[in-house]
């Protein structure tokens, strides 16, 4: 045997039988893998819990309780002069319409044979939202010829009544609530049996403007969605050309010098500056110094533009970089100027990537809240802004700010609406991101 050569080496072991140490090490390996899997699952779990909790909280906002009543548009109340002059009719403010709704409710109860002990006519009519009188008034102002007739209206039910059918208000809690009584709830139940009170999909949530603290049932996202759309328009119009121009310069033309370095460092730092700092910038520069109006989409749009620029520049540079140098060389080779080679060849090839980056930047801007708080977009705005460009200077809200605004109000119905608004926001974001992914898939080129 050749034993001498083996001296010093450890006893040979078979690889077919794992030794104790290997078994231990494999157990550690399995444990480690299990930790990793746990981490992934925790991340996914967090996502699921987040989405489910928002969905559960917010789904209710899309269904609203309505009461159908035949409202007598009595001429004595609405047009005391009797000449159907719109100016005279307009003199009757919403408050004057309350009596009509009271009558309508009384008539409805009589017709359906509902009588509730301890519920007077005023309280009975209070199960209709106080927004209802305004709703009837707008109708009358738009159609003065209808005065004197009886019209059927789908009126919003009071927020507490709506909450009753969504389970937030119970008979027991109504006992203690000064805003709603058990009798009113019983009336609502009776009307539901009669078919006059229904729950249905609530388009008004998307289209209505915000409403005051007392009327969560009427609050909607109309102004906020329009405000956000205006800001996105401004961001798109400003950030895309500026971002692309800056990227082209840095990627294609910039000489390697101090100035370029400073710009590079600035861009990478701006991408990481907390968003609230941009809000301070907006407040100090655009509002206090340049004198632009508070709460206006123009200011929000400018602030979001500055915030989005680094994102767009970074993604645009990446897509410019991915265009192979041979394309540039080919263009220069046939006598195109550097500028022509960039604008005729490189930029079109990089366009899908630029677009994708822009959409993702816009999606980020759409969800941004903190800077908008500082430039006054939390203000209560009920008026729709005008059409652009004037509308850019009108007060407006924005989707994420509206959500924040609603979380600060007392009535729990606003919490439901905030969650509902988040669903709307997330749907917009999902659409934008899907668009970005589709663009990337469809036009992505591999060199």
């Amino acid at each position, binding site marked *: 045997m050749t034993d001498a050569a083996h001296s010093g080496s450890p006893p040979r072991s078979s690889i077919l039988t794992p030794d104790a140490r290997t078994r231990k090490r494999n157990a550690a390996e399995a444990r480690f893998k299990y930790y990793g899997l746990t981490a992934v699952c925790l991340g996914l779990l967090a996502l699921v819990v987040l989405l489910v909790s928002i969905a559960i909280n917010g789904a209710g906002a899309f269904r609203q309780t309505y009461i159908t009543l035949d409202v007598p548009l009595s001429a004595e109340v609405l047009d005391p002069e009797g000449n159907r002059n719109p100016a005279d009719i307009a003199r009757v403010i919403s408050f004057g319409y309350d009596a009509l709704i009271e009558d309508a409710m009384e008539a409805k109860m009589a017709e359906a044979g509902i009588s509730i002990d301890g519920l007077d006519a005023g309280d009975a009519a209070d199960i209709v939202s106080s927004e209802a009188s305004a709703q009837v008034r707008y109708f009358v102002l738009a159609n003065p010829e209808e005065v004197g007739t009886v019209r059927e209206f789908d009126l919003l039910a009071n927020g507490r009544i709506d909450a009753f059918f969504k389970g937030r208000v119970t008979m027991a809690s109504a006992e203690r609530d000064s805003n709603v009584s058990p009798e009113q709830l019983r009336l609502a139940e009776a009307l539901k049996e009669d078919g006059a009170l229904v729950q249905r999909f609530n388009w008004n949530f998307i289209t209505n403007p915000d409403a005051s603290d007392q009327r969560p049932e009427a609050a909607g996202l109309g102004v906020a969605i329009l405000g956000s759309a205006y800001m996105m328009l401004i961001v798109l119009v400003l950030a895309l050309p500026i971002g692309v121009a800056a990227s082209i310069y840095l990627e294609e033309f910039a000489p390697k010098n101090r100035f370029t370095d400073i710009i590079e460092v600035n861009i990478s730092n701006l991408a990481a500056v*907390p968003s609230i700092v941009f809000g301070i910038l907006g407040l100090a520069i655009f509002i206090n110094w340049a004198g632009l109006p508070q709460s206006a989409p123009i200011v929000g749009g400018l602030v979001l533009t500055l915030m989005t620029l680094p994102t767009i520049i970074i993604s645009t540079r990446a897509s410019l970089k991915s265009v192979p140098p041979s394309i540039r060389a080919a263009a220069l080779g046939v006598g195109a100027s550097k500028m022509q080679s960039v604008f005729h060849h490189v930029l079109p090839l990089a366009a899908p990537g630029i677009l994708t980056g822009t959409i993702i930047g816009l999606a980020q801007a759409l969800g941004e809240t*903190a800077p908008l708080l500082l430039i006054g977009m939390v203000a209560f705005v009920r008026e729709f802004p005008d059409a652009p460009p004037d509308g850019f200077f009108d007060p407006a809200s924005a989707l994420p700010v509206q959500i924040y605004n609603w979380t600060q109000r007392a009535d729990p119905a606003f919490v439901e609406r905030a969650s509902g608004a988040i669903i709307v926001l997330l749907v917009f974001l999902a659409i934008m991101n899907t668009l970005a992914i589709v663009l990337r898939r469809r036009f992505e080129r591999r060199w």
Partner: protein
Amino acid sequence: MPVFWLIVIIGLLAAGGYVSGRARALASADGDRRRLHSLPNFYGLNVGLSALVPALLLLILWTLLQPMVIDQRITSIIPDDAIPETSTRGLVMSDVRRVAGGLEGLVNLGVISEEEMSELSASDNDIRQSLAEIGVALGADVRPEVLEAAQSYREWSNRGTMAMTVCVLLVAAAGFVLAYLRTDRNLRARNIVERGILVLLVAAASIAILTTLGIVLSMLFESINFFRQYPAVQFFFGTNWSPNFRGNSDLGILPLLWGTLYISFIALLVAVPIGLMSAIYLSEYAGRRMRAVAKPMIEVLAGIPTIVYGLFALLTVGPLLRDYFAQPLGLGNSSSSVMTAGLVMGVMLIPFVSSLSDDIINAVPQSMRDGSLGLGATKSETIRQVIVPAALPGIVGAVLLAASRAIGETMIVVLGAGAAARLDLNPFEAMTTVTVKIVSQLTGDTNFASPETLVAFALGLTLFVITLALNVLALYIVRRYREQYE
């Protein structure tokens, strides 16, 4: 919107310049484009851009400078004795501006005519009333000095706007004419246009610098104002935060910094292990299908706006922690707490940490893995003893970036952490952060000269400096790390 129409006119002029410049160039070459130095389009662009760009630049510059110049003039008009004891020149000026804006609105709406306007005097009580009707609410009746100043303010602005319109149009026309006259078949139009475009590109790139400058200057000036009214030592080392809008506030930053750091610490405690481990699992262990599903799903977390996380903290996590942990353990009754905000912020940071770590782990060369596996190490031994130590600088950089994110995060803490500034160790207690206080001091009706409002700028500057330092450090570390393996 006269400015809007001004822009439209310049735009039309530019379009006209394009067409006529192109035509003139072709005409100078007798319609034979081969005899031109550049393509016909370049001659058109030359004229168009000459009309458009200088005029637009002037417009922008004028719009920025006019308010400053006018402010300067008007401020000197206001006599010193017209400034009340309790107020400052700046406050009076903002009143003047608002009144002037209101008067302008009244004239535009036709409520009063231009003649009536010049005869207005402060004794007319209805000025405040009429202003309120068009949405300009004033705290007190308009004093004669203010009205006078407001009127000259309005006059100056109107004059300025007029002058601007004339100047801008002149510049546009001059640019048009000059470029048009120079148009000739031998003009090197392409070179001129390309140089012009290059200048525009440089200008676009410089906006990054301007933004940073704007951020720093806007916060620096107001912070200096703040430190004139409130001692810096008390601000940086004060342990008490209790703003009081009647004055005599304690504005110590330490409780806010403590809350910020405590919450960020908890967030990192959640995000770093989970983010890092899931990055390791997905890049080293998971099969292709699992990776294709799980990775984008975790990245979805990064696309969710922070307001959504804020509401999640407020509605779900906060009450859950209070009912199942804080109250049974007797640690507190608040649903907004350091723990709530920290946990939710941690979830928000998971995708951030995991995608950064993923990049960093993938940057470790395969040969390093082979070397370890070839020696008979298991995968986990390779990861823990070779890959992670090799990637450590990068991971530290990623954690610093995540920390800077956490420190600057606003909406989650506004909705989840509470508003009480305190120095406490109990994580189930509500605490507050620098960002929350910036929001609360700058929203609502505040007097822009009081230290209670100005402190927000000092807070913002502190926040900016801290996050900037973290970012610069992190970017430096990450860059050094990448260079090591390139």
